[in-house]
């Protein structure tokens, strides 16, 4: 397989490329959202040019709504389209909680498999907007508990493209959490050929022996940095990037724990009853005999996302705090 010659692709461009390629491949793929058309869309310009290319019938500008945008996408999906909904901020998912949780997620099960909802809701989540309590939330804690939803959170341009393609081809509702902070800060050369990354598989980003740092999204890079620091201290940390948050790749977690025997879970989202709790609970039950020290979590504290830079810095996990917590994992037990 050949890599593109030279020109590396940003995370934002990778998302854009996936959308364009899937729309070309399958005429049932449509885009819906506020300002998703060619009016110089602010949201990282990801959908720019798609309306000119595919027409206003397939790239549909919608009025401001709270619930009806997603509700309508569910209806379109049931009727054989494959809508990709564009929400600029993951925070706005709260206004669509009803159609996501009560309609989309239950549809296949409750109709005994008669109806499918091949729907993707794309949004940018996480730090990067510096806009306080309503523009940087990580929504996985609201939705990981909901049976019938898939949740994807890519950390690299390569994954963003391959996972978005898989999400669009999936016959179930998928929340696709792009990371705000990574859109323009990452680049990598992508294969010229088409590729699709199956949902539900974690990826080891760094191999290690003594502890597994389980994380996803932008925190992968903090974890890698922490692992580098720890290496200089003689501590060998493995970094596991979950990539898909629901369903979780339990096999990959267990496999890693089987040789490291220790785990730290890191996420940007707040601690209590967050996704890390489920991972910790799974490890505590299923990797009990493997575990040499208690499984620990590092996450944002249980308060809303703060506006001031100084508070934000204290709020989010970073490489130093991850390294420090890994040291505690190693000593504990």
């Amino acid at each position: 397989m050949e890599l593109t010659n030279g020109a590396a692709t940003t995370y934002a461009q990778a998302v854009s490329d996936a959308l364009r390629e899937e729309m070309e491949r399958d005429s049932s793929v449509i885009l819906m959202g506020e300002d998703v058309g060619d009016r110089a869309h602010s949201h990282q310009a990801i959908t720019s040019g798609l309306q000119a290319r595919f027409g206003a019938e397939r790239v549909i500008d919608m009025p401001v709504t709270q619930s009806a945008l997603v509700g309508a996408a569910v209806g379109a999906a049931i009727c054989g389209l494959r809508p990709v909904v564009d929400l600029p901020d993951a925070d706005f998912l709260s206004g669509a909680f009803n159609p996501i949780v009560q309609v989309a997620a239950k549809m296949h099960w409750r109709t005994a498999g008669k109806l499918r909802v091949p729907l993707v809701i794309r949004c940018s989540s996480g730090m990067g907007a510096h806009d306080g309590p309503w523009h940087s939330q990580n929504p996985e804690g609201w939705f990981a508990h909901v049976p019938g939803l898939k949740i994807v959170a890519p950390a690299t341009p390569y994954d963003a493209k391959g996972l978005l393609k898989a999400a669009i081809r999936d016959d179930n509702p998928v929340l696709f959490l792009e990371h705000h902070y990574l859109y323009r800060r990452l680049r990598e050369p992508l294969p010229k050929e088409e590729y699709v990354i199956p949902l539900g598989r974690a990826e080891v980003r760094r191999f290690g022996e003594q502890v597994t740092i389980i994380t996803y999204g932008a925190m992968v890079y903090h974890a890698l940095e922490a692992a580098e620091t720890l290496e200089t201290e003689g501590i060998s940390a493995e970094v596991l990037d979950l990539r898909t948050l629901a369903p979780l790749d339990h096999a990959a977690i267990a496999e890693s724990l089987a040789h490291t025997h220790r785990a730290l879970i890191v996420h940007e989202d707040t601690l209590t009853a967050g996704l890390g709790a489920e991972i910790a609970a799974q490890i505590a039950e299923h990797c009990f005999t493997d575990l040499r020290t208690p499984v620990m979590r590092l996450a944002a504290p249980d308060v809303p996302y703060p506006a001031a830079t100084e508070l934000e810095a204290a709020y989010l996990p970073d490489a130093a705090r991850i390294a420090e917590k890994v040291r505690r994992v190693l000593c504990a037990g």
Partner: protein
Amino acid sequence: MIDLARDDLLGIYYLMGLTRAVEDATREMYHQGQIQGTVYTARGLEATTVGAASALQPGDVLAPQHRDLGALLARGITPREIMAQWLRRVDAPSQGRDGQLHIADMATRWVLPSTGLPGLALPVAAGAALAMKTRGERHVVLAFVGDGGTNTGDFHETMNLAATLDLPLICIIENNGYAARTPTSSQFRIKHLADRAAAYGIPGHVVDGNDALAVYEITQQAAEIARTGRGPSLIEAKTYRMQGHSAADSANYMPPSALDEWRQRDPIELYARRLENLGLLDDALILEYGTRIAQAVQDALAFARNSPAPDPATLTDRLFAPDPVPPTTEDEIITAPRRAVEREGIWN
């Protein structure tokens, strides 16, 4: 008079009678303790539900709410399916997983399933209309909402969206006087809910919800507008819920005088008189329909009672639709070049 042949006109009569008979049987079973949960019926609404749904063509989509048995039957859902659904048997459309009239069939009868939350079916219906528009099909979606449901945010967002995008959506407001125990006077300040159409720039109509042909005709007109790309319509059918909110509701808050008044305007009686005046119905035919309807209900009951309960071992099946056939074989799936990601200075 409208474009209905004799058989169609009699078909509506049959469906209205069938609706009432199925509902009566359902309530009886409920009161005998044979049905779990809440039973919503709609005595008095037969003209609205059957009349409107009769205006649909194959490929048009119905988005009913919790009380719209008449529309389901008009769309071809059978009494057997309905009864099996009430009893939550394995032969029910939702195989015992879901209850009430939450019935889906998008393959041959084009019915979207309602949910337990009023209003929430509307954006889904608009999405179905969007799919039709996107594919350039000349189909329409017929959605029902209650007087109570028009006060929800989803009603507003959906109607505005449908208007702005010229979606082929017809929304019938069943103004039946109550949302659960709340009379319309405690729900909104206006006289005609159809006036809400002005908020969206779409046609709004008030129709006598107890007159099946009037409902049929106005729905037909709205469908024509929708089919020709001119967008949604809002129709308020004025009618009355001649019973409590659910089979468990004593209805002691409903004034007997109002019930009496509306009983004088029973939609099935009104329609029968109309057909008689047209020379289409006589006592013999009424008897014949009565017999057919009773047989259909008996058959449905027998069918449902004979249908087994769902197998608990299937409880967790089919949460997700199966994975699509992988577009590339497993070994073509490459792994990210782990260190190639340029992330230097990422935290600055």
